[in-house]
C-alpha cells in the first residue's frame, strides 16, 4: 500500500483541466471568504468580549446600504460562477463528429462495453489517447452511473433511454471506473478500470481481441433474425418505412409533427412503435419490448446508424 496521501486527483482528459480551473477558482474564493468571515467573527469575539476595554461607541443604526452592497456583490459573484460552470457543462452535449463510439451497458453489478468492431469487455474499457470517445450508455435493470474521476465525467445510465458521455483522454494510464449511482447490493464492486493507450497500442489491442462481428454486423444479423427485414427490407409485401439513411434525418409523423430520427426515436420505434407513427404508414408493427434486451437493442441501433451515409461511428472499425 502506498503511503502517498491523495490530495489532488489526476487529470487525464481534455475536460479535466477546465473543470479543475473552475474548481480551484471556487476553492480560492471559498477559502478567502470563509477564512475572512472566520477571522471577522473570531476577531470580534476577542475584541468585544465581556469586560474588554474596546471602544463601543458609534454603533451604527442604518444597515440598508450595507445590505444592498453585499447582496449585489454576492449576486454578481454567483452569476460569474454560474456562467462559467454552465458554459463548460453545455459542451458535454456536443461530442465531436468524428468521435469513436463505444456502447456501455450497466447491469447489476458490472459494466459491459462493446467497441465498434464488436470487441466486448467487462469492467474494463480500453480507449486510445487523444481521440474523442463517445460512450452511449444504457441500463439493463436499475439506474447506474458511469464515473471516471480522472476524466471529471459522470453520466447516469437510465433504464428505458440512451444517454451519452464523451471525453478525450490525454494521458496513457489506468484510471478508476466507478458506478456512482447506488444500484443495490454490490454497488461498490461495480466498476473497474479505464485503460488509456497510445493509438497504435489500442489498434493492436483491438486486433488481439479476436475477430468477431462488428457491432453493426451483429445488429444486422439480429435485424434479420427478428424478422425486421421482412417488412422493412426492399421488396417486401408489407409496406414499412425504408430505414436506409434514416438516422439523423427528419421524419414526418402521422400527427403532422416532424421529429429527427435520433437514438431516442429509433429506440421508441422499436419498443413502442405506436407512439410516433411515420406519416403514410399503418400502425402494424408489433412492439419488441421484452423480446430483446438492452444489449441487443444497442446492436440494432448501431446497425441502423450504420445505414446512414454520414460518417458516423458505427461504420468504422
Amino acid at each position: 500500500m502506498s503511503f502517498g496521501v491523495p490530495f489532488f486527483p489526476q487529470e487525464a482528459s481534455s475536460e479535466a483541466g477546465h473543470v479543475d480551473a473552475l474548481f480551484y477558482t471556487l476553492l480560492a474564493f471559498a477559502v478567502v471568504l470563509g477564512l475572512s468571515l472566520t477571522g471577522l467573527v473570531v476577531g470580534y469575539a476577542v475584541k468585544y468580549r465581556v469586560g474588554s476595554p474596546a471602544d463601543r461607541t458609534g454603533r451604527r443604526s442604518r444597515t440598508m446600504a450595507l445590505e444592498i452592497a453585499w447582496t449585489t456583490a454576492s449576486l454578481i459573484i454567483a452569476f460569474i460562477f454560474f456562467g462559467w460552470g454552465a458554459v463548460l457543462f453545455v459542451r458535454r452535449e456536443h461530442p465531436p463528429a468524428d468521435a469513436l463510439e463505444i456502447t456501455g451497458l450497466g447491469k447489476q453489478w458490472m459494466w459491459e462495453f462493446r467497441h465498434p468492431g464488436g470487441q466486448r469487455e467487462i469492467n474494463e474499457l480500453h480507449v486510445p489517447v487523444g481521440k474523442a470517445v463517445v460512450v452511449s450508455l444504457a441500463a439493463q435493470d436499475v439506474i447506474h452511473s458511469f464515473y471516471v474521476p480522472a476524466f471529471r465525467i459522470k453520466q447516469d445510465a437510465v433504464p428505458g433511454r440512451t444517454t451519452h458521455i464523451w471525453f478525450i483522454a490525454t494521458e496513457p494510464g489506468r484510471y478508476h471506473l466507478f458506478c456512482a449511482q447506488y444500484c443495490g447490493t454490490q454497488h461498490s464492486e461495480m466498476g473497474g478500470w479505464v485503460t488509456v493507450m497510445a493509438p497504435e497500442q489500442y489498434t493492436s489491442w483491438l486486433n488481439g481481441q479476436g475477430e468477431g462481428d462488428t457491432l453493426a454486423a451483429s445488429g444486422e444479423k439480429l435485424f434479420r433474425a427478428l424478422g425486421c427485414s421482412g417488412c422493412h427490407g426492399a421488396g417486401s409485401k408489407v409496406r414499412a418505412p425504408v430505414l436506409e439513411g434514416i438516422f439523423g434525418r427528419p421524419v414526418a409523423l402521422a400527427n403532422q409533427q416532424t421529429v429527427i430520427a435520433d437514438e431516442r426515436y429509433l429506440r421508441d420505434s422499436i419498443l413502442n412503435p405506436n407512439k410516433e407513427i411515420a406519416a403514410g404508414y399503418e400502425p402494424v408493427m408489433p412492439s419488441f419490448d421484452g423480446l430483446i434486451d438492452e444489449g441487443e437493442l444497442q446492436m440494432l441501433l448501431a446497425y441502423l446508424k450504420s445505414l446512414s451515409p454520414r460518417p458516423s461511428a458505427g461504420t468504422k472499425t
Partner: protein
Amino acid sequence: MTSAMMPSTYLAEGSSPGAWLLTTDHKRVAWLYLVSLTAFFFLGGAMAVLMRVELATPAGDLVADDIYNRLFSLHGIIMVWFFLVPSIPATLGNFLLPLMIGARDLAFPRLNLASWYVFIFGSLFALFSVVAGGVDTGWTFYTPLSTLYANGFVSTAALGVFIVGFSTIMTGINFIVTVHTLRAPGLTWFRLPIFVWTLYATSLVMVLATPVLAASLILIVLERVFGIGIFNPDLGGDPLLFQHLFWFYSHPAVYIMILPGMGVVSEVLPCFSRRPLFGYKAVALSSMAIAVFGFLVWGHHMFVSGQSAYGSVIFSFLSFCVAIPSAIKVFNWSLTLRKGEISFETSMLYALFFLGLFTFGGLAGLFLAALAVDVHLHDTYFVIAHFHYIMVGGMVTAYMAGLHFWWPKLTGRMYSETAGRIAATVTFVGFNLTFFPQYMLGFDGMPRRYHTYPPEFQFWHVLSSAGAVVLAIGYLMPLFYLGSSLFRGARAPDNPWNATGLEWQTSSPPPPHNFETIPVVTRPAYAYDMKGLEHERFSPHRPAPP
C-alpha cells in the same frame, strides 16, 4: 409574580403516564417529542458509527455488503424524517412558539398531541422495517431499484415516512395558524423574533412540500404492492419522474431542516453579544425567500441523470440564487457581534460553531451548484460532506445551541457550564475531523454509498472514522450533564441570560398556561441596546406587563 408566590409550573401538573401521554399542553407535547427524537437521533447515530468503523479499512470486513447498505439507508431515513425534519420545530418550536408570541398554547392543542401520536405510529412502521430486515434503497428510494429490485422492507419504511408526513403537515398547519391568529397585542410581524419567522417559513414548506412526497411514496407502494407501473420503463413509466417528485419535496425539506436552526442562532447570537440582530428585516425576509426559492431548485440533484441540459442550466442558475439569502444571513450574524459585549456561554459557543460550519458547508454548495464541477462531485463524498456540514454542523449544532439556551426555561434547572463548553468543543473538533476529510475524498473521486473502496482512499477514511468516535462522545456528553441537571441542577431564574423575548418574561418553568395575563408588546425584538433593559438585566424576576 415573584418567586415567593410562584404558581404551579407545567411540570407540577401531574407526573402519571396519563398526565404526560394525554396532555394537550404544548410544553409537555414538546417533551414527548424531545424524548422520542433523542432516541431516534442516537439510533441513527449508532448506525453512522458502525458505518464509519466499517469504512476504516478498504475491505468489507466488519459487516457484509447487504448489512452496510441497510445501515446507510436506515441512517438516512431515520435521521432525515425521524430526527431532522421534526427536530427543532417539534421540540423547541412546540415549546417556544406560543411563549414567544404571548399565547397560552398553540391554536389547536389537541391536533398538536395527535401529531405526536401520528409520528409515533409512523415511526413504528420504520422501526418494524429495521427489525424485520431493513431497507436497502438508500433514503432516496430511487426507482426502479426501490420498486423492482430492492429486497428489503421498502413498503413498510415508505409507509412509515408517509404517515410521519401527516404529523409534519399537522404541525405545520398548527404553527401557521398560531402565528397568524394568536400574536399578543402589539406584536406586529416585524416585531416577531426571527425564530418565529423561521418556524413560519418552515411550516409553509412543510404544508406545501410534504404532500408531494406523500404522492411519490404512495406511487412507490402502489408499484411494489399492486404492480402498477408509473416509474417502470417496461410499462411505459419513467424512472426519472420519481426523482423529480422526490426532490420536489426533498430539496425544500433541506430548508425545513435548516431554517429553524437559523432561527435559533438568530436568538442566541444577539443575546450573548448584547446587541440587536444586525439587519433584522433582511434576516426575516431572507427566511421567506429561502422558503420560496427552495421550491424551484430540485433539479440540481439531477444534473447527470439525463434530464435536459438546458433544464439543468436553469436549475443551476436558480440554485446560485438560493445561495444569496443564506449568504445575507451569515453576513448579518457576523456583524451582530460588532461592538457587543460578548460572553461565551455554552449555547453561544454552539452558535459560533454553527456560524463557522454553516459557512463552510454553504460555500461547498457553490461547488455543487456550478454545473461542470457538479458533474465531477455529484454522488461522491463531497456531497456527503456538504450536506453534513449543513445538516449536522449547521442544524444539529443549532439544535444543541437552542437546547442549552432554553434548557433553564424547559426544566427550571441550570446545567454545568463547564461540562457544556467541553462538550461543545469536543463536538466541533470531532465534527470537523469526521467531515472535512470527506471533502477531500469527494474531490479525489470516492463515490458515496460504497461498502468497499480502493486502498488509496484509506488515509482520509481513517481520519473520518476517528472523528466519528470523537463526535459520538461529544453528542453523548449532554445526555449526562443535562440529565443530571434535572435532579441536581441549581434552580434557574426566570431569565438567566437576561434575554429579551416574551418567553423569558414568564417563570422558569412556565405555568400551565404560560402567562398569568397576556403580555403587551411595545418594543421590537432584540432590544438589547434599549435603555430599559440595562435596568432589567439585574432584576430577572420581572413581572409581565399588565
